[in-house]
């Protein structure tokens, strides 16, 4: 995906008539436009980029050093590193990071393993693939509000569908999975796995379609059983997809907000409070923009660090693919 940016523009076959071109500035054959023209094309997007992406990022860094509040206009008094010191010393800041990690640990293995299994099996079918694509992928396009309302109702203590299934299987339903601080995050994780598995499923299906059929045929000729083919052909060739899936999943987990806000609102207590919940609570409930900005900066740095790792991993993998 990222390899395209490094691909040089291929010189066109029509470069011979370069002098005849009105807008060409001469020089390189692929030189097509003039400076001002290019900036006119870039400007509309660029304005939005600066106003709503780069601008807020800079503002967030600046505000994190001030006692900014929703109550007064402007930045407020200079606070130095106070907001950061406060965040590092707050127990709920560390617990929100821990809950985010907990959520990641609960969701990544099922989201990777089940998606892989579903994709490998679906890919083998001669017909009926559409049905399984629909079943596994459809939840992914539903709004978080829809999936949260569905799962909160399923998790209704004692009389909900989940409790009925639990009693059917011989478990005691108890007080409800979302009501218990020990299990609330598990409930959110179950809903999330159901909701987002379609994304990984589609990525794996796309990866599987890139594996040449001849490799399986060669393996079959060499006597590899179906299982051996999966073990020695499919899994190694999907390693790149798996890395991508895991890193994307970690980034998505760090940004989790919707399901938690809608299903438990961080509760019971603060047992499911995640980083974005803490940030929005500090900003919009406590009116402490400066402190919320400091927390945002810290989360921002973690996410960008993982995104950079992802970029590097992708580039290394792409280069290795090219060499192979």
């Amino acid at each position: 995906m990222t390899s395209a940016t490094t691909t040089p523009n291929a010189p066109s076959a029509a470069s011979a008539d370069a002098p005849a071109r009105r807008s060409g500035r001469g020089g390189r054959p692929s030189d097509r436009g003039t400076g001002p023209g290019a900036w006119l094309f870039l400007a509309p997007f660029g304005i939005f980029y600066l106003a709503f992406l780069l601008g807020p990022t800079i503002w967030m860094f600046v505000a994190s050093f001030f006692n900014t509040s929703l109550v007064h206009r402007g930045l407020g008094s200079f606070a130095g590193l106070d907001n950061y010191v406060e965040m590092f010393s707050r127990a709920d800041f560390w617990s929100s990071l821990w809950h985010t990690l907990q959520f990641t640990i609960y969701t990544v293995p099922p989201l990777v393993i089940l998606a892989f299994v579903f994709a490998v099996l679906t890919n083998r079918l001669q017909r009926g693939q559409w049905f399984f694509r629909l079943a596994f992928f459809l939840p992914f396009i539903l709004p978080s509000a829809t999936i949260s309302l569905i799962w909160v109702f399923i998790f209704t203590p004692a009389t909900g569908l989940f409790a009925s299934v639990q009693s059917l299987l011989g478990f005691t339903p108890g007080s409800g999975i979302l009501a218990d601080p020990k299990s609330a995050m598990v409930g959110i994780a179950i809903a999330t796995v159901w909701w987002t598995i379609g994304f990984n499923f589609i990525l794996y299906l796309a990866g599987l379609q890139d594996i040449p059929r001849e490799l399986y045929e060669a393996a079959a000729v060499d006597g590899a059983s179906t299982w051996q083919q999966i073990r020695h052909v499919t899994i190694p060739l999907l390693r790149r997809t798996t890395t991508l899936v895991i890193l994307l999943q970690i980034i998505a987990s760090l940004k989790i907000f919707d399901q938690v806000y809608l299903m438990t609102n961080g509760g019971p207590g603060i047992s499911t409070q995640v980083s974005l919940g803490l940030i929005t609570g500090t900003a919009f409930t406590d009116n402490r923009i400066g402190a919320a900005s400091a927390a945002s900066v810290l989360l921002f740095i973690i996410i960008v660090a993982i995104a950079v790792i992802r970029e590097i991993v992708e580039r290394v993998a792409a280069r290795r693919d090219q060499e192979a």
Partner: protein
Amino acid sequence: MTTTTATTPGAGRAGRSGVGGAISAAAPPARSSGAGISGRTFTIVTWIVLVVFAVIWLIPSLFALKTSLSENGVAALGANEILSHWYPTLHSYSTLFGAGDIWNWYLASAITGILTTVLTVVFASMAAFALSRMHFRGRTTVMLMILLGIMIPSQVLIVPIFEMLGAANLLNTYWAVIFPQVPAVISVFIFKQFFDGIPRELEEAARIDGAGLWKIYWSVIMPLSRPVIAAVAILTFVGVWNNLLLPLFVLTNPNLMTIPVGLATVQGSFGQRFADIQAGAILAALPLVLLYLVFQRQIVEGVAGTGLKG
């Protein structure tokens, strides 16, 4: 299993050596029947596993649908009652449509979704056109900004975005939902990749006729880019429709709320009206489900091609 794997190599080798017509003619059936046994077992297991999980995956949506078609009184009694009452009622849907809020929410979601999509597609493709077809001073810097922009997690910017919208007096307007979602940098990237693959010869005729850059972008490149326009447009629309975080904080006027925010806000006041709540959940998703059924291929390929996630 083990026996089949042991015999297959022999059959394979015999087949490939092709010593005599008889052997090579006999070998393929032997091999395929050997693979067939293991293959057939595997196919049966495949079907069983997939059907079981597909049913598990369909149950939550179907249960929500069934609940939404029940009376509130029945839904309040729990799952067993809901499943044992067969006759559906549209009572909850008529209640929701009668109350009226949902029409405002649909309107807000449609307006913000469509406007964001149009602005994103036009502006991102223009920027991508410049990056794909023109050379200018500062191009490398712009490419770096694009790469940086892809990594910026916009959700984490909710606090400064809220502050800036407040300073610009845009809170509680549709623009507060639209503007921050326009700079989806990944769209520029997707368009650029596609444009890079369009052969330049196709522009030459237009260029010889004296067409300017705008003409080439609008009359040559864009018409050739329908598949990628469709993919970006649909994914943008779905993303805006499903966004909760941004509209939740920048819209507090119930008349302007998008459908997920409206539902999240009123669910508390619904109390024990569980059938109505599930009907609301279904109605929030319904336009997207219809969109998916129509544009299934574009959505799936778009997701697979971009690795785009929330």
